[in-house]
């Protein structure tokens, strides 16, 4: 009956979204008077999960799962859910989890609600609040099936410490034959990704050309932030498509989003509105971004950003 949660790791270490998903599963388990079981795949030390409310870990170690495969991972989760008799399964909103979840929903005959932002307001009927219309609204959705699958939005519920000690059990599910095979992975190393970043620094057409991105990268560097851009910037080829954020690009749900030379078109704002604190730097005081931002500087990016970098360096040196 326990609540099952998929806790993702990268090279053996848990991602923040995994700890957030575990915290969320704990909140549901408390409401339902049950425990939390986490599934880990090729993770090293699982004891940290106890700090976020996990009671039991099903530890899967299988080199056939080194590359992510939606069908195989969904099968692992299905077998774990059946073994635990789980009625609620929690996954995150990473690209991998969003790939796996619909497959798992069919396998488990589970109703699936994605982009969920809060603990369920009720567990019977099981009612969750989720983001719809790309952050322009919320829906209160009930999941009407016996088994429920919840996809948690990033940075919405937060990481909650909840001291427990997790018992660990080796788990060796059978794997289906893989018919989608990974040939190569091309991943930037040593750079924060937009998906994982606490802070995102984003540049728009106001920066005039790709040659001016040095200061955006420098600003991101001092802050330990990921870099992003508006759609026209990626359409013009100034920056790679993978940096395009907004309604038709990547969603951003960081703690801090800094927009430089971005006007704040409705499609841009929709995609970044889930960020907690928004800062805009723009020469035009009438730019719509000022209506969406928490802090703003009306000024020329080419003057303001270098100063901001200097101020941040001084600030960091004092920390």
């Amino acid at each position, binding site marked *: 009956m326990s609540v099952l949660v998929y806790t993702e790791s990268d090279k053996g270490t848990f991602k923040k979204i995994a700890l957030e998903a575990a915290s969320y599963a704990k909140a549901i388990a408390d409401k339902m008077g049950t425990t939390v079981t986490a599934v880990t795949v090729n993770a090293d030390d699982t004891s940290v999960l106890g700090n976020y409310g996990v009671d039991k870990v099903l530890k899967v170690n299988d080199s056939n799962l080194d590359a992510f495969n939606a*069908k195989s991972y969904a099968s692992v989760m299905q077998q774990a859910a059946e073994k635990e008799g789980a009625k609620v399964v929690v996954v995150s909103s990473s690209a991998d989890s969003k790939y796996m979840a619909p497959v798992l929903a069919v396998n488990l005959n589970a109703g699936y609600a994605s982009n969920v932002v809060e603990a369920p307001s009720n567990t019977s009927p099981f009612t969750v609040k989720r983001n719809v*219309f790309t952050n322009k*609204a*919320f829906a209160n*959705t009930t999941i009407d099936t016996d088994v429920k699958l919840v996809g948690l939005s990033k940075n919405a519920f937060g990481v909650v410490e909840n001291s427990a000690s997790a018992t660990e059990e080796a788990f060796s599910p059978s794997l289906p034959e893989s018919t989608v095979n990974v040939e190569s992975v091309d991943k930037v190393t040593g750079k924060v990704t937009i*998906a994982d970043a606490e802070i995102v620094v984003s540049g728009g057409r106001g920066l005039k050309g790709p040659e001016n991105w040095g200061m955006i990268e420098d600003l991101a560097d001092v802050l330990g932030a990921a870099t992003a851009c508006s759609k026209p910037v990626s*359409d013009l080829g100034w920056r790679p498509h993978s940096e395009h954020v907004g309604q038709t690009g990547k969603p951003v749900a960081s703690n801090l989003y800094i927009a430089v030379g971005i006007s704040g078109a409705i499609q841009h704002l929709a995609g970044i*509105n889930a960020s907690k604190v928004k800062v805009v730097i723009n020469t035009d005081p009438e730019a719509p971004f000022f209506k969406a931002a928490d802090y703003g500087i009306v000024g020329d990016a080419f003057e303001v950003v270098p100063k901001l970098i200097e101020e941040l360096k001084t600030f960091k040196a004092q920390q």
Partner: protein
Amino acid sequence: MKILVCISHVPDTTSKINFTDGDTKFDTNGVQFVINPNDEFGLTRAMWFKEKQGASVDVVNVGGAETEPTLRKALAIGADTATRVNTEAKDGMQVAKELAKVVQDGGYDLVIAGRESIDYNGGMVPGMLATLLDANFVNNCISLEVDGTSAKAVREIDGGKESVSTSLPLVIGGQKGLVEESDLRIPNMRGIMMARKKPLNVVEPTNASAETTSASFEKPAPKGDVKLVDADNVGELVNLLHNEAKVI
């Protein structure tokens, strides 16, 4: 190769989102509907397969008669035929089950759907459909090539991309990258005229049931005013972000 492109009928990205009937229904008043952007990238890639590899391209939507102008637009862009499954779309699973029937009846090899619809953002129809059909599935697909029954695809992952090899039958959740923005086609007069003559078949649903119910909607709380910092006093921004917002 027989291709089916799933077309979601969604509010234009500039739409103001409001609800009616005591916040239980989306207010379509004054809203312009368009082909879901992710689906439009997929449809455009399908046209490439048609022109370069002789594929047939059909489009499908699960929805009421009000979605027909959106299907006609897909026909004007170049799809051969359109099918509308005559039922209101309620949730991802119901739509996936209705689509599965269309795919089976039509014997499609490749189904191109969008990674998500920009209205309810479920992001689940392609994966559910693939699983119901026991077909291969690639999500967040940014490149697709098909040679006979083999396929090579690129999937966007967090922080990079991944190349995979797989085979037909295949379902993808597509997005920008499948084609570029500049490849998108605005239907011309001839396309629009031809679209009027192309078949738009209305089929009755299997009455698959939904598994979730969105009982009510709400809008985000209004935001407070922006706090402006003088361009000559940038240090104040650092101070506010540290002491007030506590994000650095």
